């Protein structure tokens, strides 16, 4: 390993020769990372439009993208109200899942006996399909929004809990010894050692929980079959299906997908911002 010992010389400096060709290649890669998925998606939509027109597929079976767009424009205001409901539901449940998961995870990490006592409940709630529990929750909780919130929360909560526990426990034991050697206070240990060690695990859980919160919100609403003014996108999908308004179903579906994509992008960005400088999962290898 001759390279190691030359780099190892502290005074040799870190400046590597700037390779313009490599830089240009990296830039092209970055642009392609955006251009390729977007153009492919556009092509798929164009093909869909063409196919519906060419085969003259009736719009109550498969509406063309242009028709879905038109429906979105016409039903926009009312759909937006529903979308806002779903957004609120999803983000509240995600927020509460983070608070609950991190607090309970920290308690579990502090006390094994407590974990052993409570973990079965967490597992049972996790493995029982939400569709099966939702009707009960809807009976017990009268406020619809609160009931839906509980359902979505149950789904999103578990990954945060389990990853927080694993993250807090996976601290390097030599680093722990080091903190003991330098007489760290419990608060210093939490802030400077445990929290940063658990962060990659937490961010991974957040990405999963974000998607699950949306799924939970939609599924719960399906089960609730809520109707009336105060409803989310899932109810609109059911309602449109009853009335055979397929384009509107698609329009609501598009909004659900967009919401999911937005959540995915947000949690990915958060992860990149928080871990980008140091954690392997977010580091781009320069080659």
């Amino acid at each position, binding site marked *: *390993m001759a390279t*190691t*010992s030359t780099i190892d010389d*502290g005074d040799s400096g*870190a400046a590597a020769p700037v390779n313009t060709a490599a830089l240009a290649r990296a830039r092209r890669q970055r642009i392609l990372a955006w251009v390729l998925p977007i153009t492919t998606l556009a092509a798929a939509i164009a093909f869909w439009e063409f196919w519906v027109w060419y085969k003259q597929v009736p719009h109550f079976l498969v509406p063309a993208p242009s028709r879905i767009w038109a429906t979105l424009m016409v039903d926009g205001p009312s759909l937006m109200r529903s979308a806002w409901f779903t957004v609120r539901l999803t983000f509240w449940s995600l927020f509460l899942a983070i608070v609950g998961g991190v607090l309970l995870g920290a308690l579990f990490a502090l006390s094994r006996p407590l974990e052993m006592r409570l973990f079965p409940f967490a597992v049972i709630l996790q493995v029982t399909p939400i569709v099966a529990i939702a009707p009960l929750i809807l009976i017990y909780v009268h406020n619809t929004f609160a009931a839906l919130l509980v359902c979505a929360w149950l789904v999103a909560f578990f990954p945060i809990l389990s990853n927080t526990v694993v993250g807090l426990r996976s601290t390097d034991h030599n680093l722990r010894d080091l903190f003991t*050697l*330098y*007489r760290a206070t419990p608060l210093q240990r939490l802030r400077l050692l445990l929290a940063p060690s658990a962060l990659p695990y937490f961010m991974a859980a957040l990405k999963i929980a974000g998607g699950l919160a949306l799924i939970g919100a939609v599924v719960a609403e399906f089960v609730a079959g809520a109707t009336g003014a105060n409803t989310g996108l899932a109810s609109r999908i059911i309602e449109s299906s009853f009335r055979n308004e397929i384009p509107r179903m698609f329009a609501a579906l598009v909004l659900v997908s967009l919401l999911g994509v937005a959540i995915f992008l947000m949690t990915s960005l958060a992860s990149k911002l928080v871990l980008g400088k*140091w954690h392997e999962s977010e580091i781009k290898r320069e080659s």
Partner: protein
Amino acid sequence: MSTPLIRLDRVRKEFGRHVLAVEDMSLTINQGDFISFLGPSGCGKSTALKMIAGLLPVTAGTIQIAPPEEKVEQDLGFVFQEPTLMPWGTVFDNVWLPLRLAGLSRRAARERVRAALVEVGLSKFEKSYPRELSGGMKMRVSIARAMVTRPRILLMDEPFAALDEMTRSKLNNDVIRLAHEHRLTVIFVTHSVFEAVYLSNRIAVMAARPGRVVADLTVNAPWPRGEDYRVSPEFSTEAARVSQVLKGTLHGDDIDH
């Protein structure tokens, strides 16, 4: 000249009921000693070191360390086999840690952190993250972190075992220089007879099952040492002598590890 600094008196360590990691270890380490713990894997070297650092309680016996004359944040530095750096912190953050835990702000610690980095030749890397450094550089950061509290005692647990030969010998010279300049008392754990002989003026040879000190040797060569010693006939003679002792301790013992 030789003031006792660390005194181990019949120190014993059991893990659970069945593992006797260290049995009746008695040893007096003097101010300015560079002593190596040399022995096969599993003979309790790390355990002994951790007990001296106060990271593991002893099962029986006592460990005394003479109180320091001037007060420092931590009188004892510890270097692990792995660099044990916080990946989320820069080189500066990592070296700052001991002072930070003692309540020093970034600004208050800055001069001392920089000084420690200069000593290990990494002054240009304070903003780098550990992942951007080579194995040898990470080890230097680890040494700088141990030195930043200006300790009298430096404990090193096979710090260079994972490094290539060239990096290792370079770091050996650095450790000798640091120990000499700061009049450190060093306990250096190693598997390698050559490393032990090159670095230390004293070698405690240990044997396994149960872990114990079987020989306390003095290395007959002036200290501090340099590269010329590594190629001298005296070095080979000493290494051969120590190897002989080490073999003697293994003889008849089960060497299945």
